[in-house]
């Protein structure tokens, strides 16, 4: 039955890919959404099933067949559901279904064929993502890992006739590949060390060991795995593909680049919690990079003008939080934030999609404003999701983010905690900057764009135009007359509302002990982060705080004295951020412009994303290109290899043109050569 969970989307993919062009849009879209809902239903049933089991026994698995046998090496295609996987599949199928439904309305302008192609890719993505989280061994996970990378490429470059979209797809794939390379090396190292790639067997083998003090095998392997995670989950240094990935359709951004694929790295670390816990050096690296990325992306998001890009950098920043959590050992907190983030980030993206849809492709916030009255559903859901991400108490984001910050502080990483708080402030500020610029104030979307010469790249438009010339921003040509604004159609509104409700209530399953809750999610997830020993029956203890994980509950009981003040601090910070944003962008916009004018260098630096793309291009891409083009291509391929082949031909040509002069056509010459031969032979015999 577990196999049905990924198989439904696969079926949807198969049908849409093969027959999609002949199906009307309603059928292909409806079918795609239906298989996702079916998958969701089966997921719920499976989770119900494992909920019946004792807490430490909550695993069911299904082995489909033996995939590889080679000598001693044996890999089965096994799917395994445990508490961690249960959370993931519910998120993927649940939010996935909503986004599929949303897409039926959003992608409505496409022709039948493109519509079906979109949904086939989306279903394929769901399949691979489910394989990723359900896989019981590194190899099965990797199949999913690569598969979602492929689907990400396909979907980012969905409007492939647009040059920027095609490039963005390629960039995503190539950067991911770099991470995957490290991932494979890590996997191989683990195989060499443990002789198996099954997660539980590795965990069982690692648990009795002492944590490594220096850089040993485990540290190296986990570090390599983490590098792979930075690629997939857009952390420093491999995050550069995510902002460009906004070239894809907005539902794609919501599903893949907010809720699911980018969380694969976080999931992977959670899945290998035991392994990572035994490599404290790597954990420090993870936490540091997570925090740094969070701050870094937050600063960039503060000044971006494309609504989707702000959200993209926000995603990078929130992923940083998740990695921070994983890095300090709070695996449950990280997954908790993953889960709540999926709700509000998806809601934000879908909301921005509704705005873009209403404004017929406009994505620059400088051209928006005053939409609050015209798009009420969109506005309210967007606002709720923004409050959630800012960490306002009572909504989902507050609980998850606060738990991360608390755990960080409790494990003694004060500097990282400070960075986290700072990023919180930034998060609230830039999110509400976005809200105020988009929905409040005067309507600006008929006016031409103000002059912004510092920007190096104009904001992109996601309009599905199939002409290649539409790269330049043409703010006036295709924006509809302002009085035609319509709010989100039914399908889109439905998804928005459900997600907004989730943004409010989803966090309640993780209310920490300090506030009187039981942290149900934490205790649910806990067994996934410890090693179940294969032979002994685990006792029915609920909280087993071994070497592996720290949960909010255990921490809460001990340090509730610290937790409440910290909660207060983060709440104050969130509200301060909102107030700051309200002050500047609601009341006195000119402050922002003056600040930009006062610090032009800094402003430009942030606007151009710290020039990281340009640095990568100069240091990595161009040297490779030059070596390949000049050295390998011109030098070796053209000169040496082609030269050898052509040289052989020209040698034959030259020698034959010499030899052909023998063929003079004159019989007497032939007779003459006969004569020469006679003389020679005669001479030879006379000599002897």
């Amino acid at each position, binding site marked *: 039955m577990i196999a049905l969970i990924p198989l439904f989307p696969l079926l949807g993919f198969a049908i849409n890919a093969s027959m999609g062009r002949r199906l009307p849009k309603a059928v292909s879209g409806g079918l795609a959404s239906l298989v996702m809902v079916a998958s969701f239903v089966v997921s719920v049933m499976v989770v119900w099933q494992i909920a019946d089991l004792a807490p430490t026994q909550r695993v069911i698995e299904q082995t489909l067949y033996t995939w590889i046998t080679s000598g001693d090496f044996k890999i089965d295609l096994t799917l395994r559901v445990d508490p961690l996987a249960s959370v993931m599949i519910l998120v993927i199928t649940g939010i996935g279904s909503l986004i599929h439904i949303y897409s039926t309305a959003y992608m409505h302008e496409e022709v039948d064929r493109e519509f079906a192609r979109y949904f086939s890719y989306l279903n394929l993505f769901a399949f691979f993502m489910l394989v990723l989280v359900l896989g019981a061994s590194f190899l099965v996970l990797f199949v999913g890992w690569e598969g979602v990378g492929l689907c990400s490429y396909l979907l980012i470059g969905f409007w492939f006739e647009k040059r920027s979209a095609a490039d963005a797809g390629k960039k995503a794939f190539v950067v991911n590949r770099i991470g995957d390379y490290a991932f494979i090396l890590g996997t191989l190292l683990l195989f060499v060390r443990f002789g198996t790639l099954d997660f539980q067997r590795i965990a069982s083998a690692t648990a009795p060991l002492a944590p490594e003090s220096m850089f040993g095998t485990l540290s190296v392997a986990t570090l390599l795995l983490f590098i792979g995670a930075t690629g997939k989950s857009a952390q420093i240094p491999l995050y550069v593909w995510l902002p460009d990935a906004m070239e894809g359709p907005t539902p794609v951004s919501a599903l893949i680049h907010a809720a699911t694929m980018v969380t694969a790295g976080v999931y992977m670390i959670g899945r290998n919690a035991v392994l990572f816990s035994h490599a404290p050096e790597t954990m420090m690296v993870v936490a540091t990079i997570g925090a740094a990325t969070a701050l870094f992306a937050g600063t960039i998001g503060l000044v971006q003008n494309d609504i989707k890009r702000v959200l993209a950098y926000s995603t990078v920043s929130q992923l940083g939080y998740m990695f921070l959590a994983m890095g300090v050992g709070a695996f449950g907190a990280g997954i908790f934030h993953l889960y709540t983030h999926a709700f509000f980030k998806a809601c934000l993206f879908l909301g921005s999609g509704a705005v873009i849809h209403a404004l017929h492709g406009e994505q620059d916030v400088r051209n928006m404003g005053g939409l609050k009255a015209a798009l009420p559903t969109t506005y309210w859901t967007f606002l709720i999701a923004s409050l959630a991400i800012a960490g306002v108490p009572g909504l989902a984001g507050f609980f998850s983010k606060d738990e991360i910050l608390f755990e960080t502080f409790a494990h003694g990483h004060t500097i990282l905690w400070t960075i986290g708080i700072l990023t919180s402030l930034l998060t609230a500020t830039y999110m509400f900057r976005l809200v105020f610029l988009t929905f409040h104030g005067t309507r600006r979307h008929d006016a031409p764009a103000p002059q912004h010469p510092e920007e190096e790249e104009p904001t992109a438009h996601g309009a599905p135009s199939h002409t290649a010339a539409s790269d330049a921003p043409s703010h006036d040509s295709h924006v509809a007359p302002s009085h035609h604004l319509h709010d989100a159609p039914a399908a889109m509104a439905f998804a928005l509302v459900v997600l907004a409700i989730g943004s409010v209530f989803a966090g309640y399953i993780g209310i920490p002990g300090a506030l009187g809750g039981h942290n149900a999610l934490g205790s649910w997830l806990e067994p996934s982060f410890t090693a179940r020993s294969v032979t002994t029956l685990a006792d029915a203890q609920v909280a087993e705080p071994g070497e592996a994980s720290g949960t909010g509950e255990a921490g809460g009981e001990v340090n509730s004295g610290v937790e409440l003040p910290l909660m207060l601090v983060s709440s104050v910070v969130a509200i301060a951020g909102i107030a700051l944003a309200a002050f500047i962008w609601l009341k006195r916009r000119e402050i922002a412009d003056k600040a930009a004018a006062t610090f032009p260098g800094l402003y430009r630096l942030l606007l151009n994303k710290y020039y990281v793309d340009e640095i990568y291009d100069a240091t990595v891409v161009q040297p490779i290109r030059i070596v390949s083009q000049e050295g390998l291509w011109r030098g070796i391929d053209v000169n040496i290899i082609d030269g050898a082949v052509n040289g052989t031909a020209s040698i034959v040509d030259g020698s034959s043109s010499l030899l052909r002069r023998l063929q003079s056509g*004159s*019989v007497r010459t032939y007779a003459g050569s006969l004569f020469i031969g006679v003389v020679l032979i005669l001479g030879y015999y006379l000599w002897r």
Partner: protein
Amino acid sequence: MIPLGHYLVVSAILFAIGTAGVFLRRNLITILLSIEIMLNAVNLTFVAFGRAQGNVDGQIITFFVMTVAAAEAAVGLAIVIALFRHRESLNPDAFTSLKW
């Protein structure tokens, strides 16, 4: 009592004459005739040597040479006729179509 050497000298001279004729003449018929001269010189050599050894082997070989010469003359002349029909010329330099 004529020494063997005398006959061989005669034969050599005839052979040289024949060779010269093959290379210097530009008439196909004459070239064929020169070849006949060479063959005859060879015949003379064979007979002389055969006589010097005291058996008839030299004469026998001469028969075969003669036969072959006859066959070769026949075929060669047939070729000359065919060539002549093409080019109306008996000059070997006129037939250089197989030139590179």
